[in-house]
């Protein structure tokens, strides 16, 4: 019997039962882990599978969040319609970025710079867009409910946890399917050697655009979640490059191009962050910024000793 499905089943059961086992704080941390696992998975489609480095993925989170948030804020239209609009807008945006880059053969570092540029000028654009609140932010009306209102995506933290769990599980399943589909094999061929893939008759332009579109669509959904979970959006925060870095850190640490990598990376990073806080509090070190130093040292160690990420090494060790 293969170990991977067993491991997956145990993990799924644990995550479903988690709210029964832990308190509210742990649940909010778990929601955060799942959020980063999901967005990391979305980014992984573009970089891990198709080899296109995006450093501006926050643009899709932001546009998705603002699209659904604006519909709700101005017209009272719930997030289900909002998510459709968010996906449509982000796919269109991704296709524009992809078209410009791939048509003019912008690749590697220059492609990464282009994605940052788009995120930046979108941020500046939203800063000047009064309809979405401009720099003062957009605040969605919050209704505190103990019951689950799925139509308006309003409810207790438990609802958001399960919603994020469903999204992360869905993204995992989708990526597993994609990786074994024709698209997945074409993307991996493009990632390894684009010229060789072209020589084999793969329309690299089209398949790269597909990767960008799927990645953008998935990230847009994360944006809608973000809008309705936090209920406030500021261009300065949501489009900031640090948000893009947060998205990519999970898969980079966990293992780029792997299915478990983004999940493991997000878990390790979030728990590490909170673990260091706890450890420092336990020893009574209240030095501002010391946590970031420890965090940086640990990340450095992972990158130095496990350059392909944690998951490939762990999978080898567990013989998965």
């Amino acid at each position: 019997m293969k170990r991977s499905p067993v491991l997956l089943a145990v993990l799924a059961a644990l995550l479903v039962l988690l709210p029964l086992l832990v308190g509210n704080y742990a649940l909010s941390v778990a929601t955060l882990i799942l959020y980063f696992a999901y967005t990391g998975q979305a980014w992984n489609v573009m970089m891990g599978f198709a080899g296109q480095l995006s450093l501006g993925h926050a643009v899709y989170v932001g546009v998705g969040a603002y699209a659904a948030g604006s519909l709700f804020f101005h017209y009272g239209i719930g997030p289900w319609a909002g998510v459709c609009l968010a996906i449509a807008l982000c796919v269109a945006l991704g296709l524009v970025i992809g078209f410009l880059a791939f048509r003019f053969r912008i690749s590697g570092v220059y492609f990464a710079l282009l994605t940052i540029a788009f995120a930046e000028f979108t941020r500046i654009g939203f800063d000047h867009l009064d309809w979405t609140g401009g720099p003062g932010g957009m605040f969605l009306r919050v209704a505190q409910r103990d019951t689950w209102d799925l139509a308006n995506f309003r409810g207790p933290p438990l609802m958001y946890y399960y919603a994020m769990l469903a999204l992360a599980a869905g993204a995992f399943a989708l990526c597993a399917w994609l990786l074994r589909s024709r698209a997945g094999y074409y993307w991996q061929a493009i990632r390894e050697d684009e010229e060789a893939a072209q020589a084999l008759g793969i329309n690299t332009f089209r398949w790269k655009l597909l990767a960008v579109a799927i990645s953008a669509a998935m990230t847009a959904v994360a944006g809608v979640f973000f809008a309705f979970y936090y209920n406030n959006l500021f261009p300065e925060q949501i489009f900031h490059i640090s948000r893009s870095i947060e998205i990519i850190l999970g898969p980079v640490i966990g293992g780029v191009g792997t299915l478990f990598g983004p999940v493991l990376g997000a878990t390790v990073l979030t728990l590490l962050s909170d673990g260091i806080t706890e450890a420092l509090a336990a020893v009574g070190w209240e030095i501002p910024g010391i946590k970031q130093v420890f965090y940086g040292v640990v990340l450095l160690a992972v990158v130095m000793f496990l350059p392909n990420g944690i998951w490939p090494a762990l999978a080898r060790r567990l013989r998965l």
Partner: protein
Amino acid sequence: MDRRTFNRNMAVIGTAAALSPFGIARAQAQKLKVGVILPRSGYLGFIGQSCQKGADLALEVIKEMLGVDIELMNADFESNVDTARTRAERLIQEGANVLVGPFDSGAAAAIAQVAEQRGVPFVINIAAAPQITEQGYKFVFRNFQTAGDIVRNGLDLIGELFQATNTVPRTAVYMHVNDTFGQAMTKGISAMLPSRTQLPFKVVDTISYDPAAKDLTVEVSKAKSANADFLLLVCRLNDAIILRREMVKQRWQPMGIVSPGSPGMYEEQYFKTLGKLSEYSISNVPWYNPKAKLTQVVEKAFKKHNPKDNLVFHGLNAGFTFEAILIAADAFKRAKSTDPKTLADAIRQTNITEKMTLGAPIKFNAKGQVEGIGSACVQNLNLLPTVVLPKDAATAKPVFPVPGYKKA
């Protein structure tokens, strides 16, 4: 009822009666646990640490004032809104009776949702987005001006400055940092300035600049060529320093530099870096009353905790953080309970007349917002930010037009 059942029931009643005093003792908490959630690291770290100084001194000052014991539970949200949310959850789980913080509107909005969901009172020390108290929350309170109030008070103080110094500047050149804050301020100024009839000046040019600018030669040159009477400035710290140096370099000497409500020119680094060139810059900001009795007490405690530091450089941050904890402690004293709902009801009934910051007594309106918080016209005099207006709080007279930098 048989004898055995009777005996058992009596035993239960007897045990309950014997234990009841302990139960009462538990309900009447002796200590208020205050979760102080601030950005002590990250890009807001400097301000978060400044706020923390106000929290640290609150323990002994409040104990002396109200006889209330407070336990601080400090949390650093690392200038990250996700972390702010989880830290708030953590503090509540660890038993915080009330939350205080966090200096940032995005983080405040995130914490507010957690506080409301868990039914724990949250007193905002500093965060200006008006929407936070427009959500119909029952456990969220703010003792700070909204963004609109900051601009309104800042502009009104400019009028008072002109009146107090018998000056009538006719023109101004408006320079602002081109970031979220700068643009929000610009919108507020553009909306309010035309209706301020007591302000006789006309803005002849508006110049924006990058917050990360390393050189402002062109911008200052353009502003100088506008030949305006004074400079109306919305800045942050680093750009304010660069701009002031450039003004000296280009020998531009307007009647003065006046900020209608931005940080930068009253901060310690501004004085340390510019020395005498920092003199006479004016900032109209929410501030503390240097003449208030409570200020003297806080100042003494501040000196004890930070012997090498000066309260005046942390006035806004430490002052409003201290007051947020004071509000919680005052409510706890009246409520005699840490029950969140009772505590929130007590906060709603707050009426603190002896306060440190300027303005009306601390009273919350139905939305949980304190109205009538005042601003001060703070002018840099003798290398210290000094309150020059309003008159009843002033410790020096305003100087306007300002003398040339060579005479400073």
